[in-house]
């Protein structure tokens, strides 16, 4: 019985339920964003759930017209071994390597994952 929805819809449905999921190859490698098969060699994939912790791989600060605070766009390396583009809540600009954790926003038109610095 084939899946009735594609991997992107399945990922978004899990996120809507509050779970950040990614995929794993049998050899342990991680795949994100979700695919039908592993990129490169077509190996089969299984789903797994992330604990939502990672480190900032890179960060860029984008000043806004006052009084809006600057926006902080980040690339986060999740502990499980995949990378996401996201944003941090405004505040002091953390350095590359800072530990962060996921905050799932289930309410948006598209559910999404923001991050905050681990206190």
């Amino acid at each position, binding site marked *: 019985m084939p899946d009735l929805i594609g991997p*992107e819809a399945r990922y978004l449905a899990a996120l809507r339920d509050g779970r950040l999921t990614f995929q794993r190859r049998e050899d342990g490698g991680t795949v994100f*964003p979700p695919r039908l098969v592993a990129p490169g060699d077509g190996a089969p994939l299984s789903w797994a759930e992330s604990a939502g912790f990672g480190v900032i*791989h890179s*960060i860029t600060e*984008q000043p806004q017209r006052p009084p809006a605070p600057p926006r902080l*766009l980040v690339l986060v390396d999740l502990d499980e071994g995949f990378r996401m583009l*996201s944003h941090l809540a405004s505040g002091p*600009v953390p350095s*590359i390597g800072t530990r962060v954790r996921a905050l799932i926003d289930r309410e948006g038109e598209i559910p*999404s994952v923001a991050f905050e610095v681990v206190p």
Partner: protein
Amino acid sequence: MSPDHAFPRGATAIAGAATFGVGECPGFTALEMTAKAGLMALADAGLELTDVDALFTALPEDILGGLALAEHLGVNARFVDNNRTGGSSFLNHLMTAAFLIDARYIRTALITYGSNQRSASGKLVSALRPSVHEAPHKPMMPITGYGLSAARHMHLYGTTRDDLGAVALAARGWAALNPEAFRRDPLTLEQYHAARIVSSPLGVLDCCLVTDGAAAVVLTATDRARDLAHPPVAVLGAGTMTTHKEIAQMPDLTVTGAVQSGARAYAAAGYGPADMDMVQLYDAFTINTILFLEDLGFCPKGEGGRFVQGGAIAPGGRLAVNTNGGGLSCVHPGMYGLFTLVEATRQIRGQAGARQLAKADLAMCHANGGVLSSQTSVILGALETL
């Protein structure tokens, strides 16, 4: 034998080149500018519209622009290529055209592009469409991607804002010598540092211009080009590489596919970086120049920031980079790639006026598409380099 050597080295040449409407070109549509640059490139070659049997374009806001151009020019083309890989599109067009000409399927390829985005919208018109993974974060693209790459490069290699500024100042120095360039007023490092930050570490003066402008080249067989208006500018080698679409999927934020595209082009041409008299590269942001000089073999990885210091790539420096002023100071109508080919052609022909290089026989032309996603390298040379 590596497939890189299957590229038809020297079999084709740029016979005509032109720019039109660089800076501001109100009153023209993008399609009209594209067509006008094409007609001017044909006239430059001494060819007629009736000679054209293949069209290559990627219009900014019309995804079927190749059809619109065929209709507008009324060309009975055997081949129309509307391939879109961002700003590298036109160098990919040139690769395809070179193979088709060498196979004798087409004789005369017109590669042309124009945009009126400064006059029409005043903002960069980007073809990037975000995925569900990017869209909720509302990243300003493409600059967010380049800011993230630049921040990582600084973190790993100690690259500084002064290094990025050196790229901006060098581009302005060349532009001052080019009457066609849009920004020619002197630029100091103080002014560079005072400019508003857009996406750290990149500020306004790290970003390419938003201008109108059009460019075109005519490609034909080198043997045929010998009988045309100008000495042929031979296509010695080319290569391309795509590593990702969105910045989160870039395998390494500080290493681009120019490593592979450059290696393929050098292998096809039989020349290396030390042989190049100039580099014409797509400087959408100052970090691009640093990344591409590293990845195309002009300095080791991580050394790009130090390499560009002290006027090294400015007029009179040790390596001539973007002798027209580049996307940073000459022209950037949304996609710049094709202008690298036109400027190299002008230099190799000796038509570059005050900015003419004393030795201008071999050029590395390199263009980028997306957020460091698509990289294409083309090596052009004077007939003596064949």
